[in-house]
């Protein structure tokens, strides 16, 4: 671990931090202040509402008339700027429960990531929403920029965290289809999943969303053990999504497994690139802040 990363929250300590909100706050505190300015400033002239001035807001948008009437600074906000609706899609299928050797489960890591992202979005006036899915879409929390949205969102994630879903399979396509049906306006769609069911339909849906003006971001969350297959000796592998059992000698098939797993990862990455989807590879033993900063920097580059 580098000296810079020492500021980050150790992923192995995530669970000990308690609720999702506390975890998100811990993650956010590690990120440099002032990095999250709204990237959509001045992109529209359609007035939407006033917002009380906060340090960092552009002084050009202060409504001096309102100041004259109520002696307080208000900033005029426009349609695009105020209502960037962000759909945060969390995969809660059985495979997301996997964890190995002290690392957090993929679900815990993902929910913390999405909560932190929601915090960031709310801080700059955007409206995050939540969709939890496994083999079909589940709990939905519509996007909102209300001050209580973060509480609601974290509470929803905590509820999901305490639920044991059992051996449910992953279906990103079903979740994307639901988004495609519901979302009419330009929005940001963030998916946190291990994408174990990646196939053609998912690619088609991603492309559809892109053509409808939605930006899609994929956080591909995996455990280090899934990459390296560190087990030794004769092992009985039990599936987390009801796939049954496999008796195997990991030493003997490690090379072949890694080859096939690498090929699948590359295919997913290529698919995302082809569909103009932002793709972030995540391993649960890595700090969430790093992935979050990657995301923010990528967004800055994209809007520049």
């Amino acid at each position, binding site marked *: 671990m580098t000296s810079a990363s020492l500021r980050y929250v150790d992923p192995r300590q995530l669970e000990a931090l308690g609720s999702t909100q506390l975890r998100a706050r811990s993650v956010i505190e590690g990120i440099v202040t002032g990095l999250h300015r709204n990237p959509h400033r001045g992109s529209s002239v359609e007035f939407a509402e006033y917002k009380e001035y906060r340090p960092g807001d552009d002084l050009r948008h202060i409504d001096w008339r309102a100041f004259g009437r109520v002696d307080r600074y208000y900033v005029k906000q426009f349609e695009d700027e105020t209502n960037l609706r962000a759909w945060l899609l969390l995969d809660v299928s*059985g*495979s*997301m429960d*996997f964890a190995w050797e002290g690392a957090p489960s*993929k679900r815990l890591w993902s929910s913390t990531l999405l909560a932190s992202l929601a915090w960031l979005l709310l801080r700059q006036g955007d409206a995050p929403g939540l969709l939890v899915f496994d083999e079909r879409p589940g709990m939905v929390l519509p996007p909102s920029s209300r001050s209580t949205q973060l509480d609601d969102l974290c509470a929803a994630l905590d509820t999901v965290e305490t639920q044991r879903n059992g051996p449910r399979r992953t279906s990103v396509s079903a979740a994307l289809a639901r988004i495609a049906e519901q979302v009419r306006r330009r929005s940001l769609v963030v998916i946190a999943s*291990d994408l*174990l069911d990646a196939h053609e339909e998912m690619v088609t849906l991603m492309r559809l969303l892109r053509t409808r003006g939605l930006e899609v971001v994929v956080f591909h969350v*995996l*455990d*280090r*053990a*899934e*990459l*390296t*297959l*560190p*087990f*030794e*000796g*004769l*092992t*009985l*592998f*039990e*599936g*987390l*999504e009801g*796939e*049954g059992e*496999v*008796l*195997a*000698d990991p*030493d*003997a*098939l*490690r*090379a*072949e*497994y*890694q080859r*096939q*797993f*690498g090929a*699948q*990862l590359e295919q997913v990455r290529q698919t995302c690139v082809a569909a103009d989807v932002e793709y972030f*590879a995540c*391993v649960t*033993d*890595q700090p969430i802040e790093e992935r979050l900063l990657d995301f923010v920097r990528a967004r800055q580059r994209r809007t520049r």
Partner: protein
Amino acid sequence: MSFGVPWLLAGMLLAAIPVIVHLVNRRRAVRVRFAPLELLRRSQQQTARHIKVKQRVLLALRVALLLLLPLAMSQPFWAQTTDFATGSDRLPAAVVFVLDDSASLSAPVGDGTAWSAAQAAAIDAIDDLRAWDQVAVVVAGAEVVAPLATLTDQHSLAIDAVREHVPRWGRSDLSAALVVAQQIMATSQQPVRRVVVVTDNAVSAWPTPAAAPLGLGELTILDVADPASNLAVTSLRWEEAPEAGVGAWRVEASVAREAAGDPVDVEATLRVAGSPVATQVARLDDLQVTLSFTHTFGDSDTPVPFSVEVRDAIGPSLDNVRWGLVSPRAASRVLLVNGDARSVQYNDELFFAQRALEAPMGGRIATQLSSIPPEALASTPLEGFDVVVLANVAAVSAPDATRLQAFVTAGGGLLISGGDRVDPTGYNATLAGLLPRPLRGVRTLGEYGDPDLAIRATRVADVDSRHPIFAVFAAPGGETLQSASVWSYLLIEPGGDGDVRTLATLGDGAPVLLERVLGSGAVVLLATSLDLDWTDLPVRTAYLPLLHRIVEHLARRSSGTAPHVEVGDVRELDVATWRADRVWVEQTDGVRRTLLVEEDAVRVPVALAGPHTVWIGRPGEEPARAALLDFVANTPGVESAVAGLGPDAVARMAAEARTGVVSAEGARAAGQSLWPILLFGVLIVLYIETAVAARRRVWERIAQRMRRGPAAGAATDGFGR
């Protein structure tokens, strides 16, 4: 192929372990919950065949490992023979001749014995040496001797050494002799080294297993005798046979032969004091037969040697006879002089002593008791007794004292015990020549029945545990002697000459048991009583053995019967009670050897089988016969095993010594050890097994460390791989 340690081959059964483990492991696996199971399943389909092959290769390697390891440890070797001379045969050589003079070489060969054949073979071989060859001579035996210990090119010296050596007919240890030969060889600068062993090559000549020192040089075994069979008297037992009459003894002899064969008639003769007294013929169907003789040995005062001899014209002659020694008068004759006879039995002075001495010891009656009143002493001839006991006798007349003194001086024993009737003044007057020290009076600490007796009485504090009387009390439990209370005893004047020995003292330091050696006999003074008047010793467990030991000691029977002695042994004679400074031992051939006594014992090297008679000498006195120290010696039993060391054993020995072995016929035998090759094979298999069994990750980590060094950190790309 032959094996040095064949029983280790049983270890090959361990090869079943990997098979069992393999089968068990198939049923035992670690359970892990894992997400990308479909991917794993697809990978396994690709690698299933590879796994199966690897598992089978590993199983085969492990089985091979456990087969090879016991095989190598059982020391297999391959015997080879060749009859061509090597280039080294033409170079100057140092040759050490090792001769075997053990009893097995007494077997007849041609007109002489195997020993004479061995001498002739050795002399011939020395004659055949070239002028520049050096030679030395060593003779194997229980003790290795070197008649010619320095390598020399004067071959006549070696021939003389061989010719003049007198065989010792003991047991042999050729391996020890080879070590001596190697030491002699180490002094040589000759390019070729050769050891020639002249022997009958009997199994008994080699320790188990036969071994030659490493780097000895070429080992040549000249086998001079190969007896087809051997008949030997292997053991003798003798015991009294009272049913056959007074003084009759039964002698049982076991006669055995080397190997089973056709039934033969065995003729055995019992000889007593050199004369044949009985002959028996028995059918020997199997390996062994027992013949029984009954003979009346009479009433001799001295042990009588006897022997059982069989006729055997083939094998060694020395083991055809075996010797024994009968002590006809085994029981000590004791005259008890009762100084305080009572009509009530348990009040009688000798009530306890008689019962103790009448008790059998070791299953036989050790004493013949005769009891008389003091006034009958004058009319009783003492010559018929070994020990006289004066039990609480008031006084002894001067004539009786003189007779007793003569009796003791001639070898008899006298025990004087105290009591209320003893008159110390009278004793000092008449028995001055017998008492160890003068008496001063009587000390009374209490009376029998006194309630305070336990406090007033004293106890036996110290005993001379080195004295034969107390040898038995040195054993565990012997401390019971110290539990006896004494409340009255004779006070004894201090001082005394060198022939007086204090054997036990009381808690207050007063002596309670003293011994005085007088001529060939001894006097023992017990300062307390033999009954319960002065001590509770008679009701203590120590009383019986103590009394027996005193009587045996005074009767000179504490040496017991002659133990098993073999030619080549060193017989230790305990002469502590004889007060001798020299001992003469006469062998069966009439040779008498003089030995000096050291620490009350002499060590007699036994050179010949047969009876050995013993005389002892004191300063300024003529040698006196000590028949009780006589013993017989026999030929070592192991020498009856005359079967030759097999060619396998010889080849293995040659393999271990990294040398060749040449038999008398000139064929060169060489043992090729296979176990180093097998051990190398084990190492190779072990290496391959490790390489195959090691998990691929281990190799990957090693390769990674070699590429990047140990400080290589975690990967930094997207998935950290």
